[in-house]
């Protein structure tokens, strides 16, 4: 049995760990709240954007644009949004495995990766896929301008014909306890469904609908990407909060059982000592 000194040392160590995990949990909770607010703030914009898109496509019927160009998938790009840091439960590995599962069926030659976050980079470095670009992960308070760089790169890859479609893999935020890793097709954009009540008012377009579409579609891609970034940020903090909360509970349990062990060991030591004294006294008689 371990000596009381050893057990005491272990209790001390676990207590320190508990302090760290509960601090991390608190930080993640605060960041989660901020990220969640941001995720909710982007929704009206994204919804309105979709509405405007379907209005335009209802009004101009057949639309053509480089970003809508459907080609045979000779080469595909995957954008994988991960985190920079670990200790977020299965957040990173869920996203990576989702991406890997989807890529697995394809010939490694045709896949190009656009990776976001140190964890995504280190995961795919060891695998036989070409990494076309690496970006910093969405730090706290990601702005619309930040993601421009990513979308610009991805759009040019698609428009130049370097890749024939682009998929986006990220953790969709459901709740603090639940994040769903999802794969969405980013490009080519599927032409937005025309509004069902097609008899909707005839819009005046200024400039013409097709010119508008030219500026609207890239914007739409930006918005989708932005939403994915904001949501994965919320997911990351949610996952970390849950993981750290579990770790804190765990540490508490370990401390309890160690304390019990310590008390038993102490008791045993005292009993042995008394026995020794008693038997010593007995022998002198």
């Amino acid at each position, binding site marked *: 049995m371990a000596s009381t000194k050893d057990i005491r040392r272990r209790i001390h160590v676990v207590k320190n760990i508990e302090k760290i995990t509960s601090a991390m949990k608190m930080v993640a909770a605060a960041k989660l709240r901020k990220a969640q607010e941001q995720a909710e703030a982007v929704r009206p914009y994204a919804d309105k954007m979709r509405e405007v898109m379907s209005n335009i496509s209802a009004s101009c019927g057949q639309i053509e644009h480089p970003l809508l160009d459907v080609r045979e998938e000779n080469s595909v790009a995957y954008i994988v949004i991960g985190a920079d840091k670990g200790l977020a439960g299965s957040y990173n590995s869920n996203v990576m495995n989702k991406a890997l599962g989807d890529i697995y069926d394809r010939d490694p030659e045709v896949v190009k990766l656009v990776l976001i976050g140190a964890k995504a980079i280190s995961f795919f470095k060891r695998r036989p896929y070409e990494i076309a670009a690496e970006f910093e992960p969405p730090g706290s308070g990601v702005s*619309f301008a930040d993601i421009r760089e990513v979308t610009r790169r991805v759009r040019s890859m698609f428009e130049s014909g370097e890749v024939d479609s682009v998929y986006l893999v990220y953790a969709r935020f459901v709740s603090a306890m639940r994040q769903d890793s999802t794969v969405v097709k980013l490009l080519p954009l599927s032409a937005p469904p025309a509004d069902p009540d097609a008899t909707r008012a005839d*819009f005046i377009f200024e400039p013409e609908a097709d010119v508008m579409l030219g500026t609207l579609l890239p914007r739409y891609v930006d918005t989708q990407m932005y939403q994915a970034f904001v949501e994965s940020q919320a997911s990351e903090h949610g996952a970390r909060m849950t993981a750290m909360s579990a770790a804190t509970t765990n540490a508490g349990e370990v401390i309890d059982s160690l304390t019990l062990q310590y008390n038993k060991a102490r008791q045993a030591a005292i009993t042995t000592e008394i026995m020794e004294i008693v038997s010593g006294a007995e022998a002198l008689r």
Partner: protein
Amino acid sequence: MSEKTFKLEVITPDRVALSDDAAVSVVAPGAQGYLGVLANHAPMMAALTIGKFDLRRADGTTARMAISGGFLEVYENTVSVLAESAELAEDIDVERAEQSKKRAKERLAAAQSDIDVTRAEAALQRALNRLEIAQH
């Protein structure tokens, strides 16, 4: 006789910048020139550029915003503006605008490619627009 009003919403990617139920008129920086909208305007979709956005309310008060590009939709007496950024004149951070003006000018001087020039010019325009509106 009271004036006819309409609903106005200005939405940016990070927030709903302005929402008003009793707007009387707006003047927006259209891509092909400033355009005004009054109540019961025909359905319209317009691209916006960098410029001033003016609102007049039924109670006679006005508001001015700095807008940098986006779209304006008029449908069923509701005007929705999807802007890349939108700030009320009194919320504009003058210092930040001054700084980005300086930065844009430096970048313009050092620009290598056409893309650099276009971007820097757009940044400069945004900064100048903010400054003009803030100092008005």
